[in-house]
């Protein structure tokens, strides 16, 4: 184990360098797919902070993503500068998320999850009803993009994923992460140790909302468009959850790994036609059923054996 720990930081640096120079080695198509995958990885990592550490299942990650994406889009249409749009998008997700989490975390059992699920449907309906402002089911085009070329877009996404991941991993390993894990595991005992469980869980929800919203807003300026299907749809939320669980709960890294795997597999298997989604879903199902600790669990076990 100690040997594994020692080479791990180096492996990470080598991997990041490889990812950074990747655009010169692969086709523009792959670069585009990976760009999407990196944003998706941030969704999954944010979700894991809430599920893996705080122990709360958020069935509505797209509520937060969608708030960030639409807030940013609407401001951009009013010609706000892009960085400000992205920040306000993230702030909107935090405000919306907190408004949801504060009352919902009072509920016990499966009700928190249900509230988050219903929130997605409500947001979806709001977008459709106020079609005059939001573009409704068709969606909106935004006037700005992050970059025109594929490679700079790729580097933006990579840098964003690495920065977000770094912050989330640091947070999860800090004393706050420890208290969060304890709260998720046994709230009564954690409270008896003098910790305000609700405060920590709401904070975790806000951090998760911040990065989800931020990533949702960034995606808008990569794609140049925003629609219910691309940032709010329940199916997207389910994919985020599958990615995080597939990669390995309570690891943050694992969520990114699962997300990149899911997006890549979906694209690479495209020649299979309609079988494509089926194969990816089947692989995900098998991993979750037989390796509940996901890819990181499998890697960890292999590491311990060697």
């Amino acid at each position: 184990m100690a040997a594994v720990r020692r080479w791990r930081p180096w492996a990470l640096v080598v991997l990041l360098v490889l990812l950074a120079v990747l655009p010169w080695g692969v086709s523009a198509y792959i670069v585009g797919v990976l760009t999407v995958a990196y944003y998706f990885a941030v969704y999954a990592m944010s979700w894991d902070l809430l599920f893996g550490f705080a122990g709360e299942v958020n069935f509505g990650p797209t509520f937060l993503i969608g708030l960030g994406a639409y807030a940013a889009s609407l401001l951009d249409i009013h010609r706000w500068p892009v960085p400000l749009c992205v920040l306000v998008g993230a702030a909107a997700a935090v405000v919306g998320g907190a408004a949801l989490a504060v009352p919902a975390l009072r509920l016990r059992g499966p009700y928190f999850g249900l509230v988050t699920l219903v929130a997605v449907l409500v947001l979806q309906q709001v977008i459709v009803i106020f079609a005059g402002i939001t573009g409704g089911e068709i969606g909106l085009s935004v006037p700005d993009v992050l970059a025109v070329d594929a490679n700079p877009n790729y580097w933006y996404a990579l840098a964003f994923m690495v920065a977000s991941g770094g912050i989330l991993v640091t947070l999860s390993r800090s004393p706050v992460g420890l208290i969060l894990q304890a709260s998720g595991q046994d709230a009564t005992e954690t409270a008896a140790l003098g910790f305000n469980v609700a405060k920590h869980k709401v904070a975790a929800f806000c951090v998760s909302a911040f990065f989800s919203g931020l990533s949702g807003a960034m995606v808008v300026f990569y794609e140049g468009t925003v629609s219910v299907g691309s940032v709010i749809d329940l199916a997207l939320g389910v994919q985020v959850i599958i990615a995080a669980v597939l990669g390995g709960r309570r690891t943050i890294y694992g969520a990114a790994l699962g997300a990149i795997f899911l997006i890549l597999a979906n694209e690479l298997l495209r020649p299979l036609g309609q079988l494509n989604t089926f194969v990816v879903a089947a692989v995900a199902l098998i991993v979750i059923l037989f390796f509940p600790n996901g890819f990181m669990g499998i890697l960890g076990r292999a590491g311990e054996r060697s």
Partner: protein
Amino acid sequence: MSPLLDVQRVTKRFGGLVAVKELSFHVEAGEILGLIGPNGSGKSTAMKLIMGIERPNSGRVLLGGQDVAGQATHRIARQGVGIVFQHSRPLHRQTVLENIKLALLPDSLLRLAADKSVNDRACAIAESVGLGAVMHRRPNTLPFADLRRLELAKAIARDPKVVLVDEPFAGLTAAEVGIFSGLIDGFRREGRAVLLVDHNVKGVAALVDRVLAMYLGERIAEGSAEEVMRDPTVRAVYLGGSIETHARDAAVIDATPVLLEVADVSVLYGKAQALERVSLRVHEGEFVSVVGLNGAGKTTLFNAISGLVRYDGRIEWAGGSLAGRSPAAIARGGIVQCAETRELFGDMSVRENLDLGGQHQPPAESRDRLAWLFELFPILKERARQAARTLSGGEQQMLAIARALMMNPRLLILDEPTLGLAPVILEQLSKALERLRRTTAITVLLGEQNVTFALPHADRVYVLEHARIVWQGDPALFAKEAGAGYL
């Protein structure tokens, strides 16, 4: 000097059930108070009321003169109350040391790195409770006693003025009990106020300064351990007054075939030994009582028979082995367990609960059984349309037994039917059991801590203590041979 912890007339109701009734007591600095009572007496609820895990309906909990009743748990904890839980659920991905560090952290969202002093303190605490050698290991590699030490270490880390300890010695060996007594005694020497919650006086007698005995949510005795053990009310609660027994002739019963045979059954819960090589035998038509305090292993034994927990050893039913059969198959085979928790469908009516029990019977037979059960428990007929949730504790217990009987069991397992019931209800229940025993050929396996209730109907008695059968025999001999060790 005013006491460190002063509980004044606290009451806690759960719906119609009064779990704690006008309870008052106090603990001084440097004093250990034992809070004892049988299962369902309200002692755990009393502890939760102090810790703020439950909110009292009325009364005051004074901590150094300040009323903290009804405050959130983390606020009460920060004012100097610590609790050592009976079941530990440590963080498994972290080491023992990190688990202790957790308890030393401030309740702050802004601390992204712990102080250096935290590490040193955590190490010192680990050493002081005897975890020094294993502090860099993960909790799931530790033996049971070390997990309990970890719970103790976490409580110490908070430096509490008042320490609540829930069943400190459950699941520990005699040698470990000695070590833990020493650690708890350390709390007293450091001037903390300690509340020990346990089932019987015997377990804590050597350690405590005073004992308060509870029954049905109320104080029934208070004083030194010897005084409480001599107290007539306490003796009546634990041992019953004069016990009448009506065992049938042993020779007749031994002539009937063996229905259930449990041989050398052991069960482990993680690292705690819940049952150790238990053997017992139930003949066709026999009424067998297994008596033992809460935590002795009665429910585990019944769950093993019902196929709900994994076990080593052999369980035979009507000549065939039960190994590998699913709980549902075992229940259809005629073993029906009436669980301690009653497991009623609260929102369904009494009648619907009973009908569910009769689901697998032919309709005609089901109707007959229903009529017979309404005769056995007339109150259920009156309440037939009422939601099960709205029944009193005694009525719920009768409904649970009646529903089990609807399934036409060959063996009825009753787990702690008297749990939390008032004496007058016990008598009704007792009469119903007596009628059941006299008018039908049913075989019953009863688990009880209330000896007064368990003995009168029994043909044979087993005493379960710390996961082992320590005595078996004729109920008439129980008081003489096994009663003394029971208090």
